[in-house]
């Protein structure tokens, strides 16, 4: 009897996957807001807790299913995959632009470009140096791991273009994913320290951090009104990384290591 009821509920969740995702995420945010108010006295943003909670659930979901998509690999929660997938994510990010202050954004334009350049070069250098330190000596592996430090999309795109092997690709993707997760969790913690409290620094931040998911999560958890400014620059980051990774960066590394 109890089993039948449970089975019926699961059936509804599978059939109404997106609707179920709305309910589950709403519940998650409700719990997070309560926790933010009661446990941290409002010092930590409710959305920061919700994002971390989402990541924790993704970890256990991944352990449970052995899949790559966190809780979205559980059939009853497959709607989370659609709700948090690239399509709706980009749709909602574009919507936030409706609130952008045009003058502010234009003034920060040059800063954004500078941030994009630095945000591509700095992680790449760190990534390549780490790869060398861990005993990689061929240009293809070094470049692929370095590109992974830019974002988890730039890594595999670069690796595929220059013919990296699958172990190196996996490392590269893992580096990018780790960076995205750390950006989500770390941003609200360091926001004050790095002056992330106005549209201009948000645009610099978006260009430097790059990873759209990291920036999206990090800014949402820090200060929602900064989201569109960060997203505006971050969205160019992956494209630029994919452009220079397999070309300029690879050729430079190859020239250096032979």
């Amino acid at each position, binding site marked *: 009897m109890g089993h039948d009821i449970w089975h019926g509920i699961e059936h509804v969740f599978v059939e109404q996957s997106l609707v179920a995702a709305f309910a589950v995420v709403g519940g998650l945010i409700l719990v997070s807001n309560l926790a933010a108010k009661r446990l941290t006295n409002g010092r930590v943003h409710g959305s920061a807790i919700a994002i971390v909670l989402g990541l924790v659930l993704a970890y256990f979901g991944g352990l449970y299913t052995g899949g790559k998509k966190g809780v979205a690999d559980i059939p009853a929660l497959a709607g989370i995959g659609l709700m948090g997938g690239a399509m709706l994510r980009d749709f909602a990010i574009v919507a936030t632009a409706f*609130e952008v202050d045009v003058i502010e954004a234009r003034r920060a334009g040059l800063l954004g470009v500078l*941030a994009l350049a630095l945000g591509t070069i700095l992680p790449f250098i760190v990534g390549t140096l780490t790869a060398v330190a861990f005993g990689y000596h061929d240009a293809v592996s070094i470049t692929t791991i370095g590109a992974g430090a830019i974002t988890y999309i730039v890594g595999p795109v670069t690796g595929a273009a220059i013919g990296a092997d699958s172990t190196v690709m996996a490392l590269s993707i893992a580096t990018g994913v*780790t960076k995205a997760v750390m950006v989500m969790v770390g941003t609200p913690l360091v926001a004050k320290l790095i002056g992330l409290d106005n549209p201009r620094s948000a645009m610099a931040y978006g260009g430097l951090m790059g990873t759209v*998911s990291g920036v999206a999560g990090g800014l949402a958890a820090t200060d929602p009104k900064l989201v569109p400014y960060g997203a505006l620059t971050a969205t160019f980051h992956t494209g630029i990384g994919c452009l220079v990774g397999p070309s300029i960066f690879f050729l430079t590394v190859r020239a250096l290591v032979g």
Partner: protein
Amino acid sequence: MIVFGVALLATCTLIGVYLGDLLGIALGVKANVGGVGIAMILLIAARVWLDRRGRLSKGVKFGVEFWAGMYIPIVVAMAAQQNVVAALTGGPIVIIAAVGSLVLCFGAVALLSRFGGREAPGAGDAHAGAVVAGDADGIAAEPAVTHSARREG
């Protein structure tokens, strides 16, 4: 009408992503270059244009701002489907490369944000914050009445 706002948003997104794809092809990259950014710029331009002609109705605003308000829930759903297991089991090379680039980039943000100087957020920003925070009071409301919304968000 609300649907016009949603359709406007959808059209801007589609055009932006399409142009981003074209830009990627033109540059010989297997990726979308700035599609979302282009879409955002289109939407900002559309808002300014509609506003000037007095066609920016409450319905249109609501259609767009609803989705802006769904942004954080969508990000939470996105977080819940990350490959966190892979991130945590990648070993020291992954952690060092990620932490290293993160620290360096945070430092660079600190440096770059010094250039611009600081300003107190204006009333418009308070409205924007309330909308993106998913606060109903902020949606389709005028900036003047968002003080209560700000407290909540």
